[in-house]
């Protein structure tokens, strides 16, 4: 028998960075397919624009920094960032806004801090927040699910409206957003928020057409399916151990518990936990955004704290804040707290005793 000697480390990671990134991209496919089926081709075109911008930007900056361009591009991290951004923005956003957002995410948020592994903030979410506060009007123009709209744009219409603000047949964004019954529709989160601000109760808000054909009483038509598709992809990631279970579980649990407390206290003015989880980007955020290995906490205990606070911020900002959804803001806020969380949740070093036992006096 041949015994080989090798130096440590003996236990190696089974996957390298690019494999992890590609697995995450693959896990996003069900969600993207659901988005295409329910909301049209916009997301695919945005993904193409964003990925192209990300590759060009990354190559440019890496070249300017004097590093190896092929090495930086081969880890797929820029492509993943672009995809995460592309599925988060409204599908019919003008193309140059997508380009600006992706450039900001890659050039400023990621590369200026030193590239992959050194960025403090989640690049995709920082890019999203930048777009949201820069172009608040365009960033909240979501299409209703195709089943509810009167005009269903095909691929070329979608491409044309992204590039030139009008479809091939000359319809504008506002016309596309008109539903079958002639009423312009917002997202479920927006609808409920507006209704609550108009002194309607939460059950009354659910009577709006956006909630009519749904899978559960309090989920919006279409949006819930997208969330569930991302949930499926996310569970695969957990199963294959690409991401840990701590962050998504903690995020969803804390959001559910906090919203349940509000809901039980006053079910007329606060939305139910199921509504909060299935609508907006909470599931997507919990599995794909918050679990970013660079910007999330690195200890198991820390991950639970990190996720729990993200869930808390999402519910607080959704309920009391000015914006309908809050995953991006929550993730950015908690990114800032990660060094602190990591400091207080350092695992015990092997061979050392816990603090209390070490000093019995």
């Amino acid at each position, binding site marked *: 028998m041949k015994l080989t000697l090798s130096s440590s480390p003996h236990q190696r990671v089974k996957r390298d960075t690019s494999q992890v990134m590609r697995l995450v991209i693959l896990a996003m496919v069900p969600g993207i397919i659901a988005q295409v089926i329910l909301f049209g081709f916009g997301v695919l075109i945005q993904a193409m624009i964003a990925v192209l911008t990300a590759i060009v930007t990354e190559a440019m900056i890496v070249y300017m920094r004097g590093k190896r361009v092929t090495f930086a591009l081969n880890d797929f991290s820029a492509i993943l960032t672009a995809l995460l951004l592309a599925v988060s923005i409204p599908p019919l956003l003008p193309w140059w806004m997508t380009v600006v957002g992706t450039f900001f995410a890659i050039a400023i948020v990621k590369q200026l801090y030193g590239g992959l592994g050194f960025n403090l903030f989640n690049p995709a979410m920082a890019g999203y927040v930048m777009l949201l506060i*820069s172009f*608040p*009007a365009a960033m909240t123009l979501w299409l209703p699910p195709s089943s509810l709209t009167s005009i269903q744009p095909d691929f070329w219409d979608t491409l044309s409206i992204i590039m030139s603000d009008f479809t091939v047949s000359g319809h504008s964004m506002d016309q596309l957003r008109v539903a079958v019954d002639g009423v312009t529709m917002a997202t479920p989160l927006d609808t409920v928020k507006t209704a609550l601000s108009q002194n309607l109760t939460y059950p009354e808000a659910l009577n709006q057409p956006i909630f009519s054909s749904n899978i559960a009483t309090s989920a919006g038509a279409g949006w819930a399916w997208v969330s569930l598709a991302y949930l499926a992809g996310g569970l695969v990631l957990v199963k294959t151990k690409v991401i840990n279970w701590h962050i998504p579980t903690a995020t969803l649990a804390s959001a559910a518990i906090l919203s349940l407390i509000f809901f039980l206290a006053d079910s007329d003015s606060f939305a139910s936990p199921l509504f909060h989880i299935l609508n907006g980007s909470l599931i997507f955020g919990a599995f794909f955004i918050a679990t970013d290995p660079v910007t999330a906490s690195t200890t198991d205990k820390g991950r639970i704290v990190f996720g729990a606070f993200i869930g808390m911020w999402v519910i607080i900002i959704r309920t009391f804040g000015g914006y309908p959804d809050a995953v991006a803001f929550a993730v950015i806020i908690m990114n800032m707290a990660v060094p602190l969380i990591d400091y207080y949740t350092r695992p015990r070093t092997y061979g050392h005793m816990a603090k209390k036992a070490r000093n019995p006096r």
Partner: protein
Amino acid sequence: MPSYQDLTLQGLWKNNPALVQLLGLCPLLAVTATFINGLGLGLATMLVLMGSNITVSLIRNVVRNEIRIPIFVMIIASFVTIVQLLMNAFTYELYLTLGIFIPLIVTNCAIIGRAEAFASKNSILPAAYDGLVMGTGFTVVLVVLGGFREVLGNGTLFTGADRLFGEVANNWQVTLFATDSPFLLAILPPGAFLGMGLLIACKNAVDAHLAARKPQTEKTITRARVTTEI
């Protein structure tokens, strides 16, 4: 006393109060949403800086060392009050736009920094000149940042020039491009921080470029003394 040429270089580039000393960032970041706002606050700061430098230099041999800082602050505060009243009288709209940031010039560390570091050690003429170039350096940064943010955020330049220059400037506004969805980030506070960071980065890049072009001087090896008497 350093030469005037050296003073100019220090104030405008090498020791620029905004880009290098990073002093007075609060008004710098808060009012630079437009070119004219930046110019207005820059000129006000420059006037205060010159006035306080001259006065501090005048009394530098009279004031006792122990109480110099409160005296400097009072001198600066009087000049700020003068400038504030002048702006209230002659450029009322700009006065309203800049608001709290005019009285806050008192807290601009660049001013007390120059009073302490330069004016209290030099005669009147160099002190006044130092105030002028330091103020100009500060104003240039304010104006560049303000112009950058205004162009990015609104697509215009020199908006509200009449607030500073009177009716002559009514139609000075230049529209570079018109847009329905302005780049709000540039106008909002984060735009100021990002713009300031990029300006500093540009300055450092230019410095590095100049340093690289300069021929390398031969390093002279000096023997380090290891046996100093204590």
